[in-house]
């Protein structure tokens, strides 16, 4: 139906008044009342339940003690543990940085439960035009470094002389696995990572005597985070990789997952840096700011060709 660009005001107004009368019939009023009542009930009960959950957490025996012990042992910033004595668990958790949290894990499903099948974290690897190898790391699991070795070997065998590494949507994962992949590109003796922990600064050096030296383009987006940001910025520094896409999340913290009385404490234990002077929440700015996904890949292919 074509849009009426010049409506007749009077007629429109009449129609409106007519429908308005209908809208506010007793029947409609009753329906509205019931809806509002339902929404209010849901809102109140939800808050009641949430409050109940919170109080449940505060009531778990030994939980506060276990959390305070973990903070004392691992937390990356100095905190006054004595002040926690009078604090509730919720108050203690509020003191921690934004990346630390208390979580309830969901049980694993299907065959993975038995430890018999590993999910593949590197997907869609192939050779495209002019010997460009493309692969997507969706997540860093414990076995991602091993997967990378196999895929790199295969792409090299198939003639790849340039690489496009897709880290879009990669929210990070196992940090050791990420470090292993990074080390494959960093020459022996060069600084791989600087990790600032509670009372010490750990400088990790590459021990790789045969680094991969190949032109690379990396795709990132606003979901690229943590370990993936580390790999991207490290490859830009050490391998002159070009980064295309959108600014990343800006999460430069490392956590330990600590079991505490049936729950898990994800506790920040350090921050990572590449150069030694980056901020803890610094995002990676791409060399080519492109929002469209298809255009990101087109640009990457174009850069590889030239």
């Amino acid at each position, binding site marked *: 139906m074509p849009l009426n660009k010049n409506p007749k005001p009077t007629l429109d107004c009449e129609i409106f008044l007519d429908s308005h009368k209908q809208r506010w019939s007793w029947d409609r009023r009753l329906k509205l009342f019931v809806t509002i009542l339902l929404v209010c009930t849901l809102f109140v009960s939800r808050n009641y339940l949430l409050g109940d959950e919170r109080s449940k957490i505060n009531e778990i025996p030994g939980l506060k003690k276990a959390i305070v012990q973990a903070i004392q042992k*691992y937390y990356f910033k100095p905190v006054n543990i004595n002040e926690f004595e009078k604090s509730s668990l919720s108050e203690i958790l509020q003191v921690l940085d934004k990346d630390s*949290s208390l*979580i309830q*894990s*969901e*049980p*694993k499903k299907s065959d*993975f*439960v*038995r*430890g*018999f*099948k*590993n*999910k593949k974290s590197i997907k869609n690897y192939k050779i495209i035009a002019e010997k460009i190898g493309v692969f997507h790391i969706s*997540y*860093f*699991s*414990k*076995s991602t470094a*091993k997967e990378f070795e196999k895929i790199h070997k295969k792409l090299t065998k198939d003639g790849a002389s340039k690489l496009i590494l897709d880290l879009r949507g990669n*929210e*990070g*994962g*196992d*940090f*050791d696995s*990420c470090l292993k992949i990074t080390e494959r590109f960093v020459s022996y003796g060069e600084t791989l990572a600087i990790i600032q922990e509670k009372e010490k600064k750990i400088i990790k050096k590459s021990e790789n005597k045969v680094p991969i030296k190949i032109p690379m383009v990396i795709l990132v987006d606003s*979901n690229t*985070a*943590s*370990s993936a940001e*580390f790999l991207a910025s490290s490859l830009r520094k050490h391998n002159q990789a070009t980064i295309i896409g959108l600014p990343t*999340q800006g*999460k430069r*913290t*490392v*956590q*330990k*997952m*600590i*079991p505490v*009385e*049936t729950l*898990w404490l*994800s506790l920040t*234990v*350090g921050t*990572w840096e590449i150069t030694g002077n980056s901020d803890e929440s610094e995002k990676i700015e791409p060399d080519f700011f492109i929002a469209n996904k298809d255009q990101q890949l087109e640009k990457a292919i174009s850069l590889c060709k030239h």
Partner: protein
Amino acid sequence: MNKIKLIMSGLILCLAVSSNAQMESLSEENNRLFVANQDSDYVSVIDLKTLQLSKKINLDILSASHMTMAWTGKTGQKLLVTMTGRNEVAIVDVEKGIVEAKLPVGRSPEHFAIEKNKDYPEYFAYVANFDDGSISVIDLALNKEIKRINGFYEPHGVTFNADASKAYIANFGAHRIDVIDTAKHEIAKQLSIGDVYQVALKNPSRYLSEIKGIANVTLTSNGRYGYAADGDSNLVAVIDTEKDSIVKTIPVGEDPWRTYHSPDGKWMLVPNNGDETVSVIDAEKHKLRSTFPAGGTITGINFVLGGKKAYALATTESEALLHVYDLQKMKEKGTILIGKGLRLETASTSVDGKTIYVASSVDNSIYSIDAETDKVTKIANVGITPWGTTIQGDMASYCH
């Protein structure tokens, strides 16, 4: 005098007859293979003399049955079945072929162990409820859940120590073993294996869903030590069961599943599904002795001939096979092809240690393998998706 002799002879004869009857009865109980079928509403009973399906014990409802275990109660042979999909366990009277009781337990009960001790002269079971992190304590004389112990992370294997005064609970969702005092049914101690891992990611829940912790604690033959493989750490911890402390850790291959002990007490075998090897640990010296090549995903290992030989159940992308290991010569003897496109789940070793019975879930069959000749016999149509197998008093059976 002659009368006394006569009475004595009669008594001896009576005792002999009764003893013989008891042996026959024992022999009967030990000659039944029980199979939990994931997609049938019954437990299959295989007569091991004829290798025929002799009975179907009706559970009345599809329940994704996982595992069974048999014991002899006051009224004859009984069977405990975890009905994983129904969050229940069934207690079965084998002779009558009926379910005596169905008990609600926690979410997703899978594995369990049955024992009795000085505090509980009748049999009791610890059932691990995988999804809600609890253990149901079942009194098998009363057919009743007497306690539910909380505080576990995906509890997988349950192992009682020699006098059943303690139970070791393996947490697959964490790198931890909980030791339970079975007199109080309370967690007495916690043992951590491996490091606390470092992650750098936005959503930590995802990492938790990928943890591969500890599947089982396996005791040495004398019960003095417990062996526990940790999937993420690539190591096996040796636990002193008197002090309940970790006395040693032994590096093995990648993604170790769990440990299996040889009946002669010499070896612990560990399938490493990450690098497709099997680690052989000297269970007396607590040292890695050898590493066998493997292949495919190994879901279990069965020892035969007193521990001289072992079969590892493997499933590759295209076939199901057994890796055969000679533990006297400490080498792989070869493989036995079970079939293309099949998938092996679990196996039980017969009481005499001369035969293993393997559950093959894809073709609804049990395969019997003669340890002397490696001859394979198929028992077809035992039930839909056969899973856990057990023989009362068997040399070994396990589940996954």
